[in-house]
């Protein structure tokens, strides 16, 4: 008799530690890959699994290996059809064709990709954003679920037994199977007792008692066989995990695409948008993203055009804000949608337009929006000049007045990825039980 051991319930992820070490080792390369994928991909795709190619540097395992390009070798191969000794065959162009070994592993490692989980991707994404740990944790958290009643089930935990349902089933079954009721049994028992008390010794009398006893016995047995509550009767309350009440949000991405916004600026802006999207995704079930780009006129575009196509012209920021207001009016009524807006710009604006922007914000936009974040992307050299002062571009100076008046307006200057977070600080500091516009209604 052998020793059988069922190991299926043992923990499965024995290799997790090894995997983590491997990723750590290839971290720099993976980070670069993820960064590129984020740059090329869509904002909403960050928050998912990513396929990455096998990293090359840092994970080599060298050993003394014979070089295939040297020496004399002999191979014994099966399946000779037409060769005789002395035949010469041209060598296959790829090395190792004869041994078959090199070809097999080489080709599968070439296009070898593996999947990074969402958590691992976010870890890499967060790395130089310098988010506080609490925020990282919050962002990685998946949607919270709440159990919700959803009908009945035949199995479940005893605490969830639905007594009403169970007893109704039990009653129906008892009727159907004609289980003798307690009253029936009691009536016969009474009659037997009454007859016995009469102490009549006649044969008919005795027979009557006998018959009744038998009847009583039969009923008792029937009662025993047909249970009062049978396992088939039992019903459990069924619960279904339901995501916590979430409403919809719309995120407006506003960006200046005039010539002064180069590759670096757009990359930083993208990270800024991604971070806001991650935040919203955690909180809302449905998020629409609207991309509005502007030069001296604004238009709604798709994501690809937003980040990659070039347009030339002047810069009139207010056109973008007006376009946003138009879209809100048309598609996203503020009563039903939580509106978030993120604006990225290098701070340039045509003369006099900044005041128009401010008045638009004051009068309309800030009343409609949950949050309005503005980042001004500056050169790293400029941080020293502008870093702390209120001086700066006309747009920056104008927005200062909005900032002081509205608590849901945030603005900052960024030159490095690590500067992005402060603009969201207030957003992330709020309690998870944030009041939603829809609930307030």
């Amino acid at each position, binding site marked *: 008799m052998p020793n059988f051991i069922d190991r299926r319930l043992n923990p499965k*992820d024995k290799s997790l530690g090894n995997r983590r070490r491997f990723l750590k080792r290839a971290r720099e390369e993976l980070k670069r890959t993820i960064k590129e994928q984020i740059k090329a991909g869509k904002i909403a795709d960050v928050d998912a699994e990513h396929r990455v190619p096998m990293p090359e540097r840092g994970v080599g395992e060298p050993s003394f290996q014979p070089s295939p390009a040297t*020496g004399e070798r002999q191979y014994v191969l099966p399946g000779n059809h037409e060769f005789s000794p002395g035949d010469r065959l041209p060598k296959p162009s790829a090395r190792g064709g004869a041994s078959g070994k090199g070809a097999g592993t080489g080709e599968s490692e070439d296009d070898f990709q593996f999947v990074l989980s969402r958590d691992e991707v976010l870890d890499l994404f967060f790395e130089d954003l310098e988010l506080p740990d609490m925020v990282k944790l919050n962002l990685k958290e998946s949607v919270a679920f709440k159990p919700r009643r959803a009908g009945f089930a035949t199995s479940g935990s005893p605490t969830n037994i639905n007594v009403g349902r169970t007893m109704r089933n039990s009653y129906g079954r008892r009727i159907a199977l004609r289980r003798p009721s307690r009253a029936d049994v009691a009536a016969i028992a009474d009659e037997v007792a009454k007859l016995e008390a009469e102490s009549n010794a006649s044969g008919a009398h005795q027979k009557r008692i006998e018959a009744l006893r038998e009847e009583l016995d039969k009923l008792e047995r029937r009662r025993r066989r047909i249970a009062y509550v049978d396992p088939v009767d039992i019903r459990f309350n069924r619960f279904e995990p339901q995501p916590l009440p979430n409403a919809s949000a719309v995120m407006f991405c506003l960006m200046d695409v005039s010539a002064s916004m180069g590759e670096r600026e757009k990359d930083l802006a993208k990270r800024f948008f991604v971070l806001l999207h991650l935040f919203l995704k955690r909180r809302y079930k449905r998020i629409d993203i609207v991309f509005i780009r502007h030069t001296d006129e604004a238009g709604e575009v798709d994501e690809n055009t937003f980040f990659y196509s070039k347009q030339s012209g002047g810069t009139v920021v207010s056109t973008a804000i007006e376009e946003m207001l138009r879209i809100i009016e048309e598609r996203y009524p503020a009563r039903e949608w939580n509106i978030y807006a993120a604006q990225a710009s290098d701070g340039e604006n045509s003369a006099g337009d900044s005041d128009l922007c401010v008045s638009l914000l004051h009068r309309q936009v800030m009343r409609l929006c949950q949050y309005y974040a503005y980042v001004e992307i500056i050169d790293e050299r400029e941080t020293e000049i502008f870093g702390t002062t209120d001086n700066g571009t006309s747009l920056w100076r104008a927005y200062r007045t909005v900032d002081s008046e509205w608590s849901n307006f945030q603005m900052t200057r960024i030159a490095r990825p690590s500067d992005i977070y402060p603009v969201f600080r207030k957003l992330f500091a709020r309690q998870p039980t944030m009041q939603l516009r829809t609930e307030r209604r």
Partner: protein
Amino acid sequence: MAKGAASNLLFHDSDWNFETLSRTYDAIETIALDELQLDVYPNQLEIISSEQMLDAYSSVGMPLMYQHWSFGKRFVFEEHLYRKGRRGLAYELVINSNPCITYLMEENTMAMQALVTAHAAFGHNHFFKNNYLFQQWTDASAILSYMEFAKKYIAKCEERYGTSEVEVILDSAHALMDQGVFRYRRPPRLSSEKERERARERLEYEEQTYSDLWRTLPPSPDGDSTKDAERDASERKKALNLPEENLLYFLEKTSLILEPWQRELLRIVRVIAQYFYPQRQTKVMNEGCATFVHYAIMNRLFDQGRISEGSMLEMLHSHSNVVFQPSFDDPRFPGINPYALGFAMMQDIQRVCTDPTSEDRDWFPEIAGSGKWRETLIDAWANHRDESFILQYLSPALIRKFRLFLLTDDAGDNYCEVASIHNERGYETIRTALARSYDVAANQSDIQVVDVDLLGDRHLRLQHNVKNGILLDEASRDATLRHVRHLWGYDVSLAGVDAETDDVLYECSTAPNSE
């Protein structure tokens, strides 16, 4: 239900449970022990899921393994192949231990479980217990506790010295794993308690005897004449037991810069390499033995009416998948399939013993027609490795059946030449060449420590004995040499010397201005 007719069957449908597993095991055991006269370690059968099988894959098939990123890399790789459907998982995994642990996949059907039980728990198990290589070079009863010791020891080192400190040592040790086995000298037996005790004692001793004064000793006056130098060299070689083929062993014992715990890590890697060395030398025999055993047992069970026709067909289907040998020009050709070759050779031995042709009588006069195929096989399983087994038993009939031919490939030419085919003149050559291709020691690059002057500049000299002009791949050679330097602490050089002519073919060194 036709109970009377069907009661003889061990199982009826494809679902398994522990009752049918155990009943089938008993039936298989009876045949294996009584009819095939196998001799096995006690069996322990463990049911695992596919995820756990993937885990086991990445830790080189051991149930316990220390942590290292390279296993994570392997895991990612295997998982990718599996998820893409490029590669199926093995139906079983068996560990050379006492008791012999066999992993069965939960997804297997009952017929597969029966096949796998016969294959691993009896075929492989018998081979592990009886083959001389395993008997001499591995210690089945100690390996599991040794692995436990190794895992704990390395975890403790990581805690104390930091993960990255441990990692760099393991990286270097892994690079030399192929050069970390004794090919000719038998390694001492190990037991985990003794190991632990020894590690502790060694540490204590080193701490007690450490004296800074030793470093201040003045250098001894040098002998000027070349004769003296030569004598010195031969003396110090003798003192260090050079030349030494086991690089890890040499570094563990002799390196001047390693801490005691670092030496212990080298030792662990070396012991594991040594443990797997016999498996690499007996791939054909081991798989052939297991395949032969499962085939014999399944047929016997079917003859006894204990397996239904449906189940038998399922088993035959996977059996023929396992022993499938595509020709060299088939896109699926991965090399010679050890299952196919091993199984065919063992069946061939059975045929020669019971029903020989006149050719067989010429080639195998001792066994042809003797009828004692069981004894012959059991003897072969016990006393051969792949190389000697093929050299001894590959018959002309089989060479014809596989249509084997010999191709010589000189890197200098732009063609390969067919040297021999399956004809009268070719049998011997093909047999010898095939046998040699399974000689692990001959196919691995032969690299040895030849000289080091511990009192001088401590330059470690390695020598690569080049056979048939096969050199080393330069990029990985230099990277590996850097690993050797890392463990040695001083410069290391490697010279390639032609094994026949003693010409120096190349020289390389980690020293910045190498000669």
